[in-house]
């Protein structure tokens, strides 16, 4: 019941995918986690297309978030963590933007944000948790009342209620569901039938994709239907959740992609050194984003030698012995 053309209407270039689905003011969910499987190729294209006023929703995010903020694409942010592992314990442009009052932001925790995506995926309006009781996550609202009236913004940050199934005092935090306009995920495999397979940790990617109105998937490889259907227990998303598929190898660089390539320590260190300076950051964007016409050009800039250095051992999934200092 299928043929090789099943996804022909979803396969597109990165420029088309961004142009078709992402608008000024869109709410986007970023897949991946800090230095792994960030949707970098899409982030760069968003910057190139000079899309503005994005409302980003994510849990722990690093490189993609930081370049988007630095390039001025982000107006509003719901987030648990802005960091790049050892390469930037706090993301540099993120830190700067908040300290300068450049973006509207609201803090949650990782579990809270993941549960909010789960609630969105399950189509329930909220989900309870005990996480955060007593913390300032409950007492400090990030968004103003005006912002709360806008589309895709929860009317309240959260709500505390008594557990109706307990006769004793028992407080529970209710978290509002998230249903972003677009989820962006970078994965290892998409089948010719449109099935998505993430290898290694999935973070909250699957929940994010199911919670969103539109899902853009960038991938390392398009693989035959027969391969992806040989072991359906491993797959992550059925075809009907996916709206755009872009094949773009190393599409998560400089972050890593399990089984394909490691994070690029040289690039992340370089970024760390320049990102705090507005002028040098602008040069960085000129060099690595605005000035890059094709993905092949981007790969050449990284250099074949570095691509070989970060290439993952296919069994262990990471680049063994890579100099990560």
């Amino acid at each position, binding site marked *: 019941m299928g043929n090789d053309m099943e996804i022909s209407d979803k396969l597109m270039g990165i420029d088309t995918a961004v142009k078709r689905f992402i608008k000024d003011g869109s709410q986007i969910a970023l897949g*991946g*986690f*800090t*230095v*792994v499987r960030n949707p970098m190729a899409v982030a760069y294209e968003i910057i190139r297309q000079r899309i503005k006023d994005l409302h980003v929703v994510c849990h*722990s995010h690093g490189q993609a978030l930081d370049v988007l903020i630095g390039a001025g694409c982000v107006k509003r942010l719901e987030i*648990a*963590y*802005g*960091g*790049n*592992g*050892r*390469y930037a314990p*706090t993301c540099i442009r*993120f*830190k700067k933007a*908040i*300290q300068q*009052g450049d973006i509207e932001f609201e*803090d*949650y*925790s*990782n*579990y*809270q944000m*993941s*549960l909010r995506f789960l609630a969105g995926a399950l189509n329930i309006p909220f989900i309870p948790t*005990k*996480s*955060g*009781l*007593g*913390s*300032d*996550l409950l007492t*400090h609202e*990030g968004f103003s009342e005006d912002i709360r009236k806008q589309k895709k913004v929860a009317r309240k940050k959260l709500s505390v209620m008594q557990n109706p199934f307990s006769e004793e*005092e*028992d*407080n*529970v935090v209710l978290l509002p569901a998230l249903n972003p306009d677009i989820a962006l995920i970078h994965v290892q495999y998409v089948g010719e039938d449109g099935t998505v397979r993430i290898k*290694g*940790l*999935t*973070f*909250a*990617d*699957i*929940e994010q994709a199911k919670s969103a109105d539109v899902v853009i998937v960038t991938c390392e490889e398009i693989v035959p239907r027969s391969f992806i259907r040989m072991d359906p227990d491993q797959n992550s998303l059925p075809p009907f959740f996916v709206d755009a598929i872009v094949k773009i190898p190393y599409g998560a660089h400089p972050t*890593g992609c*399990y089984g394909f390539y*490691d*994070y690029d320590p040289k690039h992340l260190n370089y970024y760390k050194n320049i990102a705090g300076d507005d002028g040098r950051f602008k040069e960085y964007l000129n060099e690595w984003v605005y000035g890059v016409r094709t993905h092949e050009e981007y790969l050449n800039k990284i250099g074949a030698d570095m691509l070989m250095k970060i290439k*993952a051992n296919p069994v*262990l999934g*990471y680049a063994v*012995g890579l100099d*990560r*200092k």
Partner: protein
Amino acid sequence: MATEYSDNEMMAISAGRFIKNGDIVFAGTGVSMLAATAAKRIYAPKAVIFFETGGIDPSLDEIPMAVSDLRVMSGTCLNSGLIEAFSIVGHRKLHTIAFLGAAQIDKYGNLNTTSIGYYHRPKTRFSGSGGACDVASFASGVITFMQHEKRRFVEKLDYLTSVGWYKGGDSRRRLGLVRGGALAVVTNLGVMRFDDITKEMYLDEYYPGVSIEKIIENTGFEIDVSRARQALPPTEDELMILRNEVDPQRLICKA
């Protein structure tokens, strides 16, 4: 003559000594990763190390530099996601110990990893909670790594990201958090624990070469030192395993 060792090594070993067989250890990055791995290789081979990203019991042949590092996905018994990972931290049948770090801590072990100054326009913004608030809410016990400085050990946090003993006494339980709390604070100067009744921090161990006075000076609130004793330095064996097996690239040991 005793071997030289770094602050990170002393901290990793001090924290690692808390871990017992059967514990499920929630590790973060940096020294906490070192401590978790050291604990498993030295004191508690039947402890399980896992990460908030969902990697459970990885082989850790190389030390991860981030909790999402590809190295936490390799050789695991299960690669899952964030939802699964946090439901493990809070699972009532598991004894889970979490390692955290923070920018500020108060005398009840509450932590700030969000910001210094006015929340909406902070003087310094940090990464935010990440999973810290969650594990502080759910784990059986939290061990926090800190640089021991007056500006970090404060009377009042600028922002309470992660709940320790809250306002002391039984206030944590009254919030609705059924277990857990701050177990210990491991710094570059010593190890702090919390009084069983008041839940206030006290000095438990000071490292060789560190004076009790130095700890008092570097703590921004009054701290009980009446129970303090000198810590045992790392043994040759402990250091050897740490350096040769846990962090052969010396990515964290050296600092």
